[in-house]
């Protein structure tokens, strides 16, 4: 990390050396499991970690957010507006909803995937058009990603959460942690093989690449 980045973090008020990742999606997409895997791995690698989720009504198709913060010492579990180093959107309209939480210069990872709420299904509201293009124009560090297609190719679209996680971890340069061990402890045995393949497929997206997740986050 450069001196400039440290200064900018202090200016934005994060505790020294703390990194913040906001994961957003729609109830049922597996954002919480992905965040649990991420947090567990970070703890095993020796970081202080806090993960915060809001659930309760999330199973009923609501917007779901999980906050993951890690570093030498983390205080508040909440990521404030303009403070996330990385925003990972499992659904693209959710990227728009939570965009204000990304710090200027932070990285945005968007899954090019749509889930329509009831108001859109019944034709009362419209799903915004051209979201990916608008996000690209607004956020310099943006990576779009078709995790749904990759997961479907592996046999189950539901594994897109772990595809995204694999990409995120590889992109952040955290590949050195025993992620397969973490998966084995947190995923049901019959789904382990699928999830390991999903994780690897996601990671392959950034294999050997110098991503903006690593350099700027």
């Amino acid at each position: 990390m450069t001196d400039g980045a440290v200064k900018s973090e202090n200016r934005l008020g994060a505790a020294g050396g703390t990194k913040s990742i906001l994961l957003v999606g729609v109830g049922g997409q597996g954002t919480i499991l992905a965040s649990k895997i991420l947090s567990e791995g970070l703890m095993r690698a020796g970081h202080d970690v806090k993960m915060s989720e809001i659930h309760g009504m999330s199973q009923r198709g609501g917007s779901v957010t999980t906050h993951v913060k890690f570093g030498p010492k983390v205080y508040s579990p909440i990521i404030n507006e303009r403070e996330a180093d990385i925003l990972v959107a499992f659904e693209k309209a959710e990227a728009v909803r939570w965009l204000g939480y990304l710090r200027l210069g932070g990285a945005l990872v968007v899954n090019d995937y749509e889930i329509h709420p009831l108001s859109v299904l019944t034709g009362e509201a419209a799903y915004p058009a051209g979201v990916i293009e608008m996000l690209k124009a607004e956020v310099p560090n943006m990576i779009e990603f078709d995790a749904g297609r990759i997961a479907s190719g592996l046999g189950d679209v539901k594994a897109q959460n772990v595809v995204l996680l694999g990409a995120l971890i590889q992109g952040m340069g955290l590949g050195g942690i025993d992620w397969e061990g973490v998966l084995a402890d947190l995923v049901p045995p019959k789904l382990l093989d699928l999830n390991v393949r999903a994780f690897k497929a996601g990671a392959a997206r950034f294999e050997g690449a110098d991503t903006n997740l690593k350099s700027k986050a």
Partner: protein
Amino acid sequence: MKEIMTGNEAIARGAWEAGCHVAAAYPGTPSSEILENVSRYAEIKSEWSTNEKVAVEVAAGASLAGARSMAAMKHVGLNVAADPLFTMSYIGSNGGFVVITADDPGLFSSQNEQDNRWYAPHAKLPMMEPSDSQECLDFMRDAFGISERFDAPLLFRVTTRICHSKSVVETGARVEVPIKPYVKDPGKTVMAPASAKRRRYFLEERERRLRKFSNDCPYNWVEWGSVRKIGVITSGISYQHAREAFAELGGSVSFLKLGFTHPLPDETIKKFASEVETLYVVEENEPYIESFVRQLGISCVGKSAIPAVDELNSGIVKRALLGAGEERAYGVDAPPPPRPPVLCPGCSHRGIFYEIAKYKDVVVSSDIGCYTLGVMPPLGVADSVICMGAGVSAGIGFSKVFSMPGAARGDGSAVKKVFGVIGDSTFFHSGVTGLIDAVVNKSGMALFIMDNRTTAMTGHQDNPGTGRTIAGEPTCRIDLEALCVACGVRRENVRLVDPYDLTRVREAVREAYDAGDIYVIITTRPCALIKDVTRGRENVSCQVDGDLCVKCKVCLKVGCPAISLREGAVEIARMMCNGCAICAQVCPKNAISKVGEFND
């Protein structure tokens, strides 16, 4: 060993390490996972209680019998349990007795935003407030001993962000604490006026001893900066926000971090305040600490700068106290569609609401649970939701008035009938008493008991109607129909109906509407998300025949998230649909059919 745990998991772990013997709770977000985790420890006898009052009384009896015991609930649950709580303060404890209140600042899933710290001075109970998962474990482990030492129930206060945040925790071993001898002592445990008055004096004396403890205890501490300039008094999650907010000021800030928050440590606060130039009180919701600081004659900045409403975070603290300005944020001009929670595809409540919605001269008194979502469009079924049980009892009140001359809606139209709506778990919780009231006082309302065989909204906990204990053992399943009859409802006025069968639902709603005296409809379909139900129906779904469909959109009026209108054509998402076929039954052209086979 190091583990990453939610506050709720850490509370359960702390109770286990403390040698807790008995635990009782009624589920409610954000507290539900406390007992779910406690119940995994075989050494602790756990139960889902019928309601929070029962839970506190069960734990109270266990404490008096000599066991370390606990009860857990959400903030509004403590209102239900306030009666035993206030008198148990007089009786005290034998085995350690801890009552957990999980408050919900920001109202993520609650009907109000009350700050239950006020209960502690009101009932004169010692109170602890952890600020992360490690403290949840450590404080809980010590709480039982404090309860025993001071002969007092201890109030353990957490909030949504503590309950549902994970942080790193160092765990320990369980200490086996023997069950204390039970000695009959009516002067202490039978709260008749004479003995209660004696204990009333004891309370004041106990408060004095607790205040001294608060000043000396290891749960309240000072973190001095290198220069004593700014002082911040804080507790619970607010401590974490304050530490983060003031990080950039470095060593000029000192913190008085309070973990034992009733009685508040007067001497510690006075000393801390005297050594700093500027004093801030950073707390979420009510000015609980600030009021006490001001009572001590100390001036401070608190709620004059930090809002009392909504959840706190470090950004709010910075803007309020450090004058941090708003900076540019990323944003694009494409408003995302709102995603309010909705009834799931295959929800067993949908058919009932679809039929009730046809009655424009009906007022619906609803209740707390998934069926509260009936209020959402396009169904729009609910006139009031107050608290657990009010679906029945407020309905009695509505019904009384609408039978009086002159009572009408604002537009002059008459209200001909009042329907109450309540879930199975909520009916057992506090609807039964309302139903007895309705029968005895000759109410003309009709009641819909939405029995989906689980406590759905809070995550599928067992209840008296499921026939299973929290340990998964089979037990008596309370028969709702027999219960209603036993409450005095005429047998012919209790009707069971399959909510997936819209013809029968329509008939039942009509009968309820026409009935002159109390009428009860009990639904018979389990929640679509119960694992066995999902598995059994996973290959069943509905599909639209595009040739027959005339795009009248009537099927969209059932409010099912599996049905969509895409480029003018109605589609049903097979992955989401469970084949409940409510949509097929409302289709005037029979364009929707059910396909696939049920699994055994």
